[in-house]
């Protein structure tokens, strides 16, 4: 009981302190930014002093810029990973898997179920019939161009009409595979990442010879890291039963007909399946990796931020110490304590703002750079790009300003409250 009370008290105190800190930081940023308008110490003084102590200034800038850079880079990595998987889903498509399956790899639906599905309400049709692609996924090792070692590629057996269901995918080079033949089309990232996956090439896997006949672009989604072929052929090669598929993707008549389709399919006693919107399925797939990157990145940035605040504090304290006489003179000729604090805060914010911009500019070239990692859900390799958006840059600059206030506030207060007479007498 006592221990609980103690912990409760501790948490309350911590919360109050955190709140005070946040308020101080926000107040500090606002006050510092308003300094040129409300303070009476001219801001040209700050520019001069920053220039006069350029070594210390550069050190502080680099410290904060490094932190901001790592922060933005990590977040953009997490964003990029998520964006790649989310782009793989289309709100107009529904994914059907065996009930309880958490990923396509675990699915299993029979050809009979697929046939039932084709007559379900809410499904889109065109002249070729209902728009359903029943799919099989395999994981096949191919050598990476970069290291020469094998990495797992997701090979997806699809129906020949797949391009009418995943309408965002387009053949950019060569042609689509012909049904019933050992031909492959490869995603644009897969074509770049693995050796041998270029149009015209013949490769062997699973005991068969495959002709690469085309490259497709699916708009930066995870399909760009895949290889597609005819589902029936892939089933034969992987020695799986011919009439069992792992998932089916259905193009809906309209995004609104999802519920209609889902109710019809899940209530049908002939099937035991789950229906999810394709976009939800892929968003969920990205959570493990996104969380891992965000947590690790957040931890690293937080630790670095503490270090950068120490650096900024050191710089500002040294600045205050070196300028004892200047500050005392300002006070002696009539500037108030408040004005001196504002002036120092402004200087700290100036430094950190520049640092924030420098940090963001330094990582900006990463935008769009693709990198690979393992997707835990499918055990296969996935290419994705760093995605640096405007709001991430804004967050980076804000982060820099927070570090600036934390590093500048105490030295500013110390500067303002030094007794004038003593400081003037020093040296």
């Amino acid at each position, binding site marked *: 009981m006592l221990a609980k009370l103690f912990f409760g008290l501790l948490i309350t105190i911590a919360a109050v302190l955190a709140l005070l800190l946040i308020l101080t930081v926000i107040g500090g940023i606002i006050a510092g930014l308003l300094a040129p308008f409300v303070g009476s110490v001219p801001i040209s003084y700050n520019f001069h002093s920053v220039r006069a102590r350029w*070594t210390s200034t550069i050190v502080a800038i680099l410290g904060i810029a490094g932190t901001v850079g790592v922060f933005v880079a990590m977040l953009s990595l997490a964003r990029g990973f998520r964006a790649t998987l989310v782009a793989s889903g289309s709100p107009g498509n529904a994914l059907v898997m*065996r009930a309880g399956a958490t990923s396509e790899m675990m699915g299993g639906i029979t050809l009979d179920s697929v046939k039932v599905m084709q007559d379900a309400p809410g499904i889109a049709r065109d002249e070729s019939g209902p728009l359903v692609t029943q799919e099989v996924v395999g994981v096949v090792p191919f050598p990476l161009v970069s290291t020469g070692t094998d990495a797992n590629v997701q090979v997806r057996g699809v129906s020949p009409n797949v391009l009418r269901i995943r309408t965002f995918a387009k053949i950019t080079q060569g042609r689509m595979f012909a049904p019933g033949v050992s031909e492959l089309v490869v995603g644009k990232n897969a074509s770049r990442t693995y050796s041998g996956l270029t149009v015209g090439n013949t490769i062997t896997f699973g005991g068969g010879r495959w002709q690469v006949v085309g490259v497709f672009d699916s708009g930066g989604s995870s399909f760009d890291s895949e290889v597609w072929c005819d589902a029936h052929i892939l089933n034969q090669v992987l020695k799986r039963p011919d009439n069992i598929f792992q998932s089916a993707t259905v193009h809906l008549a309209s995004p609104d007909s999802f519920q209609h389709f889902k109710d019809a399919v899940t209530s049908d006693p002939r099937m035991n399946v789950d229906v999810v919107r394709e976009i939800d399925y892929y968003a969920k797939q990205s959570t493990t990796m996104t969380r891992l990157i965000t947590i690790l990145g957040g*931890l690293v940035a937080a630790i670095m931020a*503490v270090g950068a605040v120490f650096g900024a504090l050191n*710089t500002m304290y040294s600045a205050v110490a070196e300028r004892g006489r200047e500050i005392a003179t300002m006070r002696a000729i009539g500037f108030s304590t408040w004005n001196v604090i504002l002036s120092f805060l402004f200087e700290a914010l100036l430094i950190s703002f520049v640092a924030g911009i420098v940090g963001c500019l330094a990582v900006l070239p990463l935008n769009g750079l693709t990198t690979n990692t393992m997707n835990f859900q499918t055990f296969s390799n996935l290419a994705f790009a760093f995605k640096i958006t405007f709001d991430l840059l804004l967050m980076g600059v804000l982060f820099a300003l927070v570090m600036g206030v934390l590093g500048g506030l105490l030295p500013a207060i110390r500067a303002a409250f030094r007794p004038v007479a003593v400081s003037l007498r020093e040296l």
Partner: protein
Amino acid sequence: MKFGSLILANLLRKKIRLLLTIGSFAVALFLFAFLGVVRDAFNRGADVAGADRLVIINRTSIINPIPLSYRDKILHIPGVKYITHNNWFGGVYKDEKNFFPQFVIDPENQRQVFPEFSVPEDQWNTFVKDREGAIVGERTMERFHWKVGDRIPIKTTLYGGGSWEFNIDGVYRGKRAQDDETQFWFQWDYFEERIPDRLKGNIGWYVLRVDNPEQSPRIAKTIDEEFANSPYETKTETESAFAAGWVKQFGNIRFLIVTIGSVVFFTLLLVTGNTMAISVRERTSELAVLKAIGFSDRSVLFFILGEALVIALIGGLLGLLLATLAIPVLATALNGMLPNLILSPALLAFGLLTALLVGIASGILPGIGAMRMRVVHALRRV
């Protein structure tokens, strides 16, 4: 240390600055240890690999099976000592978030091939007799607060689906710190009995031990040739090559970590170097007086380097101490997301060494400046 008290007095002259500089060192070393531990965690596979072990997987795809009937043929190849087989179960305990690997094992040979995992003899005997028995790694036991004797359900959608129930008969522990203690093992017989007929007789992968690791390449080649052109071609690799290939698929984690680490150290060097430079600048006249009353140029350099080294040493030790305390807590918090986080003594030693090098580097320029300083000029300045 006859100048010890002088160095100490100089250090304590600006207490806030001293604290901040030590703090910067501590933070940098903490981060260093953290990044090092994460990098090791991603590379763990290669450390745990047995030098005398080979892994055989299906050449077409790692998720495709291999027939159990290959076992005896492989065992007849000269140089093969023990062989065991595993399957990946891929089940879910209550919620998808509770991920841990479940392996179907062959109780007869598991312990000969993986001697690094130890199970108390009585627990192992119970397990062997219990068809629905399971042996669970200690970390997973702790994570879900399981006890020996518990009966737990694991849901699967593969292998005919449904919820499979297991009795926890024992706990295994790794003999080395880096061994994976998260696995869940259960019996091949139970597995084979419950799965649909069309899947029977297939295993996921073989692991074998050879008499002499130098023979591994020849044995691997013999095995793969034996099954070439069969419906199930094999791919045999040493366990470390298999693990290294797996790690490479995570992308260039090493590059990422080395980049962040260098940014941090570069910044640290600048911060401390700058602080040392300021503190030397402030003391120009004092140092000149020291030289004027007869201290040699060398001893002035020694004072300044000494100061820098003391700061680096204290800050570095503090940071590593913090890391030693915090990393077990982090490891618990991240349980299940990353392999075991282990802070190795080698990493600690390397961290401290780096801290001292940065300390020397930050003190050397101001120190040389002070050493070369002409006494007359310096005294005239103020």
